[in-house]
């Protein structure tokens, strides 16, 4: 019995090579498609706010801001700002973000008070991330090359043509707290 199984495994299969390849190919498509679909599901606003920590705090705050309520009807949802678009960067971010699951399980920001207490460290992490990638997520939509300074306000022109153009500053250096409330800003540069 065992011996016959061994011979079966050892002897080359009589199934046609194309058949085996086809099965492998179909299996690959299903696995890869499923993986990416699941990945995309975690990249939606509905998924983000399915946790009350997000729904009650950052989402509610974001609903008052220009990226949610505006004249043109274009919205930047959670992943537009918090997840890179490029696949490799996205995977890296997703793995890093799995820490949030641990946070959810331990209930560190379970209450509003808990959230507010941890806002500074969470905000700092996000500022650091955006500083390091030169505000990549901002620039997915706001391309400096495409900015028409004649359409901008005096104050914007001054800042953008100076600090931003020279690369000395990046978006997040000035535009902090544009979509969520700020933590205590004591000691933060330029606050």
């Amino acid at each position, binding site marked *: 019995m065992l011996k016959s199984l061994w011979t079966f495994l050892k002897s080359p299969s009589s199934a046609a090579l194309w058949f085996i390849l086809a099965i492998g190919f179909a299996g690959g498509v299903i696995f890869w498609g499923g993986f990416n679909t699941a990945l995309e599901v975690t990249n939606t606003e509905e998924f983000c706010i399915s946790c009350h920590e997000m729904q009650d705090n950052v989402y509610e705050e974001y609903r*008052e*801001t*220009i990226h949610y309520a505006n004249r043109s009807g274009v919205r930047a949802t959670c992943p537009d700002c918090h997840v890179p678009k490029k696949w490799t960067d996205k995977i890296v971010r997703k793995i890093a973000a799995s820490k949030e699951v641990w946070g959810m399980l331990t209930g560190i920001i379970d209450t509003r008070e808990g959230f507010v207490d941890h806002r500074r460290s969470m905000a700092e992490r996000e500022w650091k991330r955006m500083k390091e990638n030169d505000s990549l997520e901002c620039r997915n939509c706001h391309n400096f090359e495409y900015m028409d300074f004649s359409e901008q*306000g*005096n*104050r*914007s022109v*001054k*800042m953008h043509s100076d600090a931003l153009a020279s690369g000395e500053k990046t978006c997040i250096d000035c535009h902090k*707290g*544009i979509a969520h*409330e*700020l*933590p*205590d*800003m004591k000691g933060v540069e*330029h*606050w």
Partner: protein
Amino acid sequence: MKLLPLFFTVVTFVITTHVIAQEKVNPGGLETIRGASTIDETRPAESLKRVIKDKNPIARNYVHQPPVVPHQTRGYRVDTNSNKCLNCHSWKYAAETGATKISLTHFETRDGKTLSDVSPRRYFCSQCHVTQADAAPLVENTFKPVESLGNE
């Protein structure tokens, strides 16, 4: 003959309801800035005014008038954690940003003591400094701004 009391009852009822109804819609001859409207009707709200986008400082009308805000301030939070106005208007950053500095009176407490930073009573900018919109005066008036403050 038996119908007479019934007739009176009906007449009284009609008159009473009529009088009550009339009282309900009587505006009392009063007309507000929003126009004449009866108590039982809700007037549609005025359309929102548009905040001016970004202009140079607007001249003051009288001495000690808090300067008005000639730019948009949407989303500029002023609370215990942060003060977005001071990002540009504080002494620390005004030179760099080209904004008007807050006056030194903002450092004084109500007892006249000068602090090393903005006094809590002067911290909430929009209590005095108002963002300007394209709103025409509701009531005509003959006020003339002070010439010495740069008004024409």
